[in-house]
């Protein structure tokens, strides 16, 4: 069965001027298999809400598929995905600020506690920017340049912000009783 048999026949431009094009199916599946697991973890933790991480992951990839980014290399696509994901989390957080019901739901779904301390809840006390920086630096082990590319900051700004985020999280952990 072809797409034209299933959906209304509307011409979709496969390629646009300047060599820009949409991502093809084979490349999408390759990118999805390669990047989705890490991006899902990133969204679940920096968003502080494991239940909406799937929706955000889906929306991130849907935006990738609608954008004319087929000409970009894999590393650039990775940065594109992380920037989109971070923006979506930020938008969702702003929406939650306006709607107390959403905010309460997000707070109550930060996931199960790890060990005897609830690290996800302590982590959620950081700002979105701090969470993003720490996740990329310590879990995905990105260097300053990579973090800057993925978040759209300057490398110098990453260095300073990461230092502050680390210091703040250490203080929150110490206050919460994490001394391992």
């Amino acid at each position, binding site marked *: 069965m072809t*797409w034209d048999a299933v*959906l*209304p026949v*509307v*011409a*979709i431009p496969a390629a646009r001027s300047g060599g820009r094009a*949409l991502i093809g*199916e084979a490349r*999408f*599946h390759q990118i*999805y*298999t390669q990047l*989705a*697991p890490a991006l*899902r*973890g990133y969204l*679940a*933790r920096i968003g502080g809400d*494991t239940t909406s*991480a*799937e929706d955000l*992951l*889906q929306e991130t*990839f*849907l935006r990738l*598929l*609608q954008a004319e980014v087929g000409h970009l290399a894999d590393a650039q696509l990775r940065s594109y995905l992380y920037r989109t994901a971070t923006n979506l989390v930020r938008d969702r957080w702003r929406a939650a600020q306006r709607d107390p019901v959403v905010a309460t739901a997000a707070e109550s779904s930060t*996931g*199960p506690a*790890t*060990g005897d301390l609830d*690290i*996800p809840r*302590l*982590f959620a006390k950081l700002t979105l920017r701090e969470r993003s920086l*720490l*996740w990329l630096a*310590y*879990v995905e082990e990105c260097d300053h340049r990579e973090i800057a590319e993925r978040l759209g900051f300057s490398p110098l700004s990453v260095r300073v912000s990461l230092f502050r985020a*680390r*210091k703040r*999280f*250490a*203080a929150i*952990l*110490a206050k919460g009783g*994490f*001394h*391992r």
Partner: protein
Amino acid sequence: MSEEIVRRAMQELSQTPLAPLPDGNRIWWLAEIRRRQEAARRVSQTMTRVRIITSVAALLAGSGLAIWLGNDLPGLTFLTTAGLLCATAAAVRVVMAKE
């Protein structure tokens, strides 16, 4: 010291189990539907513009014709011309309301 504490906390955080990944094929399908909806929306927008432009052109042409004929035919008066204009304007309004 803080570096080590943060590193350990982040390691523990990353080991928290998460739900399985959504199906990639489903996302591809959804994207394909969105693309087609977007393409259909663009086509519809273009058609609306063309309808408006043709209606306005018809309005102008009708007015011009009425004025031109009004000089030669005694039956065409100012009121007839105004009526023609109103009818065309109403047709434009109906086309826009349908969209």
